[in-house]
């Protein structure tokens, strides 16, 4: 079962107040999904790094963590995340490194992880995965084990972890069985006490509310760029909220 937020219930929910920064910093179109960006678990290493005025982040991901074209790297969400964090953390040196290449399963990324962590020594690993595993029909247990292994590897290297799940892609929805992978990621995140950035749920809500038309057959980059910009901003909100030392979310599952 794919768990989605019902449109009506979503509309009935009170708008969640922006946690980090005034709301006008957001592009208007991102704002509707703010209440979905809720961290249940703290990010202590990030909090420490912010206090030390130097925040290094590593994004490891597959094809949906980048955009094609010459300006792709600058407009994809890792770069937008860096820009949003730098703006909200004046005086802190924010650097986002990426290891992004297409068609990698979670297990393949785990293989690359030790070298990446050694090279960048991040306080935070943002790990986008799930789509390729779903496309290839990777065994659920193996997928969950890869997630566990990656999270443990990052932790022993002194990094916090945020998981990012698959994109909502309505055109291919009847062809890629994302449901159980998304659920599995949610489950691993709760077990490992790692924040999950619910990219799928956020994009689904944007689609339901008409913020973006993800059915669009456009070949142009402009919508993709706006989506990545929004994802970068919301991801920055999540990171800052989870890294706040004084409010490690009272409602979280402990």
């Amino acid at each position, binding site marked *: 079962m794919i768990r989605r937020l019902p449109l009506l219930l979503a509309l009935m929910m009170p708008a969640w107040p922006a946690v980090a920064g005034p709301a006008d910093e957001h592009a208007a179109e991102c704002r509707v999904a703010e209440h979905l960006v809720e961290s249940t678990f703290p990010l202590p290493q990030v909090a420490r790094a912010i206090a030390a005025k130097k925040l290094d982040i590593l994004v490891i991901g597959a*094809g949906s963590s980048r955009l094609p074209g010459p300006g792709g790297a600058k407009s994809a969400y890792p770069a937008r995340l860096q820009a949003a964090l730098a703006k909200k953390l004046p005086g802190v040196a924010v650097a986002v490194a990426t290891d992004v290449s297409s068609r990698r399963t979670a297990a393949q990324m785990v293989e690359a992880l030790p070298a990446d962590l050694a090279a960048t020594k991040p306080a935070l690993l943002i790990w986008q995965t799930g789509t390729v595993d779903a496309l290839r029909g*990777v065994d659920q247990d193996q997928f969950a084990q890869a997630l566990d292994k990656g999270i443990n590897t990052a932790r022993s290297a002194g990094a916090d972890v945020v998981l990012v799940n698959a994109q909502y892609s309505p055109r291919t929805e009847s*062809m890629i069985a994302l449901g159980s992978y998304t659920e599995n990621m949610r489950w691993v995140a709760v077990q490992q006490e790692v924040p999950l950035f619910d990219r799928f749920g956020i994009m689904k809500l944007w689609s339901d509310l008409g913020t973006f038309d993800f059915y669009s057959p*456009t070949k142009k980059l402009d919508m993709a760029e706006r989506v990545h910009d929004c994802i970068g901003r919301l991801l920055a909100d999540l990171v800052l909220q989870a890294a706040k030392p004084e409010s490690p979310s009272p409602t979280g599952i402990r």
Partner: protein
Amino acid sequence: MAPVSTERDLRLDLFRGLALWLIFLDHIPSNAVSWLTIRNYGFSDATEIFVFISGYTAAFVYGRAMQEHGFVVASARVLKRAWQIYVAHVFLFAIYLAEIAYVAHSFDNPLYTEEMGVRDFLANPDVTIIQALLLKFKPVNMDVLPLYIALLAGFAPVLWLLMRAPSIALIASAVLYALMWKFEWNIPAYPHGAWVFNPLAWQLLFVFGAWCALGGAKNLSRYLQSRVLVTLAAAYLVFAFAIAMTWYFPRFGGLVPKFVGELIYPIDKTNLDVLRILHFLSLAIITIYFVPVDWPYLRLRIFKPLIICGQHSLEIFCLGVFLSFAGHFVFTEVSNRLPMHVIVSVAGIAIMIGAAALLSWYKRVERKGPRPPAAKPGYAGGDA
């Protein structure tokens, strides 16, 4: 033990028809109307209803055949049915191929370069199509029919045992279920993993349905009216509803005690989690309590559309899968706003009803035709 009743229980057709409608609504991706369906409010969904009732009707129809014509004839009929379902599955796969080929050539949004990997399997059809014919490659939402085929393929000996020693057959089924959980048995799938609906798990519900048809339901009936049982079932449904709400409102997740979360998650659909079985049984208990077999409203015209859909389950199931593909196509090509979701859902169900009415009419005409009605005794009670 012989099939006890000669009168077909209309409730079976009614609820199987309902399950078919719900499966159709659930199979249209992103369909807002699917928020009406039961999967959103508890652990089990329409699949459980469909499998249980299919087991029940299979025992009802082929049990009588076995009694009247012996093991060999009944087995041959069961296998013929399995073959029909296989052909239906391959037909649906052909439609699926057409859809994916269309998407692959018409869609190039730069946001979704990764998702376009679905094209990859068109690159080597020699492997993919053969794996599909072997039932190892099963696209999204095309897992129910292979399960049904597997269940029917092994059904004849089970039915034979059920008619002689029903308790032993049911216990054997439960033991197989338990062994499957202990040793994690499943059937391998292509390119990786295992069957989405593990037949070794789901057989339990199918056999339980068959057991009920062959007298089990009658034996259970005195317990089914007990207030204690009905209260327990209702309490369990409330519990499942509360848990389901935490899926949509993550903030309530904190209200679920950690030990409860660890106890219940993950709720495994592939291997038919015990929580799902209990949820289905609770639904069944409540339903039977409020809708007895002689419920006068069953013959009301308003239920007729559901009942005729349930009476032609294979055809209507396949039509539903096809219509869900078509509905998805309308969403992508015409409109994906809420009014279109409603229109597609209502039109789809109307088409299912129309087709079922046509099939019923066709069957009546066939019976009246040149061939004597005895030509198809096995189907007198409807299709399994």
